[in-house]
């Protein structure tokens, strides 16, 4: 590894992201790695190593790595971390930067399209609306326009009276 290949501003950039604040306090103790359920299934996945690479400034290597998308956000690492790094949140911040840089995996991109178009990833049908009625909640209807408005993709659509979202 050469110093010229490292970008010292990368860790600051991560720290500026919501959730990324803790990255600079990591001591590399590996308590997170020890407790990571993904690591025990996928040998290459090592949260300490990802954080080290990020701190060293290996921007491209980290953002383009398919490994960062394997974090299952179980928070085991945050719980054991003596330095309060909140490793899960730091990885989320890294994923956000990766997505902005165009590295989101195809499945993630498909989900984003689904979310923008329908406002949710799971279809809400009769079954869900029956359950809502039992609980005294108004039915949810498919109003993609609402979500596109929320996302700033479309001006807000006038909604029919009495309809929930």
């Amino acid at each position, binding site marked *: 590894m050469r110093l010229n290949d490292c970008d010292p501003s990368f860790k600051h950039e991560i720290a500026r992201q919501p959730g990324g604040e803790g990255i600079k*306090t990591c*001591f*590399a*103790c*590996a*308590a*997170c*790695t*020890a*407790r*990571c359920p993904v*690591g*025990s299934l996928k*040998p290459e996945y*090592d949260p*300490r*190593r990802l954080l080290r690479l990020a701190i060293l400034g290996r921007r491209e290597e980290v953002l383009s790595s398919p490994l960062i998308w394997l974090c299952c956000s179980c928070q*085991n690492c945050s719980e*054991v*971390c*003596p*330095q*309060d790094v909140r490793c899960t949140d730091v990885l989320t911040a890294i994923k956000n930067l990766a997505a902005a840089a165009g590295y989101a995996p195809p499945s993630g991109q498909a989900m984003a399209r689904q979310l923008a178009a329908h406002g949710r990833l799971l279809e809400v049908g009769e079954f869900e609306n029956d359950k809502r009625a039992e609980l005294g909640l108004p039915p949810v209807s498919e109003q993609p326009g609402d979500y596109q408005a929320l996302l700033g993709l479309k001006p807000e659509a006038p909604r029919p009276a009495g309809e929930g979202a």
Partner: protein
Amino acid sequence: MHNRGPRRVGGCLEEIIFLSALDKPVLIIGGGVAGLAAALELDRRGLASLVVEKGPNLGGQARGFCCKALEVCARCGACRVGDLLQQAAQRPALGALTQALAVAAQRQGAGWEVTLIPQEGPKPTSPALALERPLGERLLVQTGAVILAVGHQVFDARKKSRLGYGRVPGVMTAGELEETLAKGGLPGQARRLAFVQCVGSRDQALGRLYCSRVCCGFALRLARLARYLEPGSEVTFFHMDVQDYGQAWRAELAEMRAGMRFIRAIPGEVRPGAGGPLAVFAGPDGQPQEEEFDLVVLATGLEPPVAAPALSEMFGLTPGAEGFLTGGQGVLVAGSAGGPRSIAESIESAAQAAASAAEHLVSGQAPSPEVAHA
């Protein structure tokens, strides 16, 4: 430095008379290595002092530590306690009161008037030395200077519950191993030993950001001694990095590295295994790994003394950065009460505190307050 009054004591007769004429001994609170070393240094300078110890015995926490020498001295400092007690016993001018607690202090000119009360507590663990006289009743002491040598508190390993202390059989603290080895050997059939470093130190989640400085040294020396006593035993040393104690230590460390397994990771969990505690840690390839040991030893760190807030208030001191004690006008701090210190460092700081106290007595001026973590 000041210009008023005689400057140094050592050997100057006029000065000794001058100081004893003050007839206000230096009050030393805490009778561990630091308190004893301060009393001896003052004695060497011809100054009377009174050591006030809340427990039944003098010597402090290091009293139960084991000598970590193999064939030659390991320079661990454990034997210094006995030396200090022996020297103190030979100095009649040196007074000590055990089972005594300072509860109030009032400014009197450049000195203090301190109220001591008897402290209920356990009876002495070993036969009392002539020096160890329990305080009978409430006592007022007028003193020209005070040395705070109340030591540190050891981190309660139960607070790191994932490491299993108090829950998983076979997990013990390094302090407990000190005492076991001092009594002559490893517990039971323990042959597979693991040491976990920085327990309660360098831990932002606990609000303990500092390194305790002494635990790398005592843990590795304990490990080496354990291997020496039980030649078949194997040691795994879980750490982040190892403190550097200087040139001689580096040579020692190189030998230790050759004989023990150093793993640069702190276990995320210790749980009961079939035949002993099972540690879960990141292996060299960055993969979670499990391994069973006979004994997992936690190198617990040094915390500020319990008495720090009360003493700070009593003497009007500003609390130090990490909660350790800092000095003030006519109040000096010695030993681990002022920050994590080894036995040798505690003795050294005590000599400094004694010198500053002597200076304060002569000048009535404030010596520069000690900086925590110096």
